[in-house]
């Protein structure tokens, strides 16, 4: 799991002023904000015009919204695992609960997009608070599995006994209402704006995406960012320096759950449907794969992971011959990452760019490898 926000060791060899400045800038909040806004604005456009993609999706841009939503989910999940070191195999509990809360509120109480999304987030936080009381007394593996058990419990609960409320596999429908009573989310743009982001729904989700990225960035830059990492690295030491580790874990769990719930709400709003599948363990498993595959502990990692996942599920799946193997490929890649490349795809990209910046070190490395020196890397941390 790689760290972020850390000034990389500046070797004497490469002291180009521009690279140093770049290293500093890319961690600032302003830059991250610009990048994420830029990403949102250009993503839809580029994605639907990319080769292979365009053949399969044929202009369908709903996938881009789904990718943004799952990026939010993965970012929230990463806050718990990548930052704080707690693995939960039950994040579907947040995703699915928020999904239902959103739908139920819209049907029985009041239907306005921002309101019901907020309700969804609050419901996720509520379920998180209850679950935390059970989970936080458990050791790491127990924590992961009992989280899964809670998720499964909620799933089966929603499937049968509560079917009257949840309508089981048929699900609950959410009807479209204007945002804040004014803005039509289905409004399609024409011309260049249309090319960029098609409709208001995309902007709505995109805005939340940027908000979540900035929120998480701020958390990472706060004392909490440091404390979460300390808990991950050495929980005992963290408590012995005087930190109330339980409470910090509690907050991490709620923050992570709230963001996951946000994703669930947004998906419900977007698809106008809440179904019981969103509580199933495969949802939890999917987000684990995304976050790990993309790269734990970073901002870009979970986003890349979500992208790669849906690329495989949405695009590769549609290809002839290769199509059936999409999930197998993802599973194998995931296993490989856990086994030998713990920094994930983003980690591989960053270490590659790091090496390319220092050609002398790279050349030396290539020489030693060719000479037959086996690099016995540590299982964790590796090189950066």
């Amino acid at each position, binding site marked *: 799991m790689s760290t972020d926000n*850390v000034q990389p060791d500046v070797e004497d060899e490469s002291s180009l002023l521009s690279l140093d400045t770049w290293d500093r800038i890319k961690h600032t909040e302003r830059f991250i904000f610009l990048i994420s806004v830029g990403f949102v604005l250009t993503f839809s456009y580029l994605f639907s015009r990319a080769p292979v993609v365009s053949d399969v999706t044929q202009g369908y841009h709903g996938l881009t919204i789904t990718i943004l939503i799952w990026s939010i989910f993965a970012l929230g999940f990463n806050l718990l695992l990548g930052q704080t070191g707690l693995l939960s195999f039950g994040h579907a509990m947040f995703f699915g609960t928020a999904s239902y809360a959103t739908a139920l509120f819209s049907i029985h109480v009041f239907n306005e997009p921002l309101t019901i999304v907020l309700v969804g987030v609050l419901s996720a936080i509520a379920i998180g608070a209850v679950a935390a009381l059970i989970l936080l007394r458990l050791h790491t593996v127990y924590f992961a599995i009992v989280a899964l058990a809670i998720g499964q419990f909620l799933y089966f609960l929603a499937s049968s006994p509560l079917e009257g409320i949840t309508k089981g596999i048929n699900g609950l429908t959410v009807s479209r209402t204007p945002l804040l009573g004014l803005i039509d989310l289905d409004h399609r743009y024409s011309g260049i704006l249309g090319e960029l982001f098609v409709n208001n729904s995309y902007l709505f989700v995109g805005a939340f995406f940027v908000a979540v990225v900035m929120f998480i960035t701020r958390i990472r*830059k*706060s004392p*909490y960012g*440091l404390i979460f*990492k300390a808990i991950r690295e050495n929980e005992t*030491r963290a*408590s012995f*320096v005087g930190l*109330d580790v339980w409470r910090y874990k509690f907050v991490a769990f709620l923050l992570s759950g709230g963001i996951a719930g946000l994703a669930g709400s947004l998906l419900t709003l977007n698809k106008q449907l809440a179904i019981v599948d969103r509580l199933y363990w495969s949802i939890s498993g999917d987000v684990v794969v995304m976050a790990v595959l993309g790269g734990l502990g970073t901002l870009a990692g979970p986003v890349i992971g979500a992208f790669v996942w849906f690329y495989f599920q949405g695009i590769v799946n549609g290809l002839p011959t290769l199509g059936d193997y999409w999930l197998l490929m993802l599973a194998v890649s995931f296993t490989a990452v856990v086994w030998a490349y713990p920094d994930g795809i983003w980690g591989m990209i960053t270490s590659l760019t790091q090496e390319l910046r220092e050609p002398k070190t790279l050349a030396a490395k290539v020489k030693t490898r060719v000479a037959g020196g086996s690099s016995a890397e540590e299982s964790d941390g590796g090189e950066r």
Partner: protein
Amino acid sequence: MALLETNELTKEFGGLTALQDVDIAVEEGELVSLIGPNGAGKSTLINTITGRLTPTQGTVTYAGTDLVGMEPFEIAQIGVGRTFQTASILPELTVRENVQVAAFAAEHGSFRINFLSRRDSFDEVQRLTDDILDTIELDDKAETEAASLPYGDKRRLEVAIGLATDPDLLFMDEPTAGMSPAETEMTVDLIKKLQSEWGITIFLVEHDMDIVFNISDRIFTLHQGELIAKGTPDEIRDHPAVREAYLGGEEQ
């Protein structure tokens, strides 16, 4: 009133008695050492006092407060710090970040809702961190990843973390273990400085008898869970029970 007092402190693990009726008192400003052969129960004693273990019987009083039943983080917050035998650092964080974590705990308490504030906006924490790094002389390595430090520096970082919790009483569990003579000397100087300049009461667990007899105000000797001797270095040097425990007099 002694700063730290234990009374009939006993710790049993099932059938095994690790500590038996240990009575010690540490005065403020002292530097006391705890010695004893391997397995005597030294680490158990520290763990029991600092909250990692719960005593089977007996009391631990610090500045008038009963420590038994308190969580380790609470004990740390009231001024009892410790360093660990194996360098218990945060590997993937930088040296500065390692110290900073402890500094935050010292300045902000055990918990604070401030996840929307940038951490470099807290001047008092930065100052404490810089002070510590300067004292331990790790400021030139502040941005290095802790995992890549040489062993001796890791041990010093361990001390730095313990120091950054702003303790009045600091337990140091074999701080010089595995260090070179030069590093050992540096560490001993540091410990003396902590006592004289920083006014910290030091509770040292050490195997190196030269150090122990050189810098301690008083020495406690533990053997098979029992306190067999306590007194000044001179008193301990000639103590028959101590000699016996170590099979042939004081050795280094």
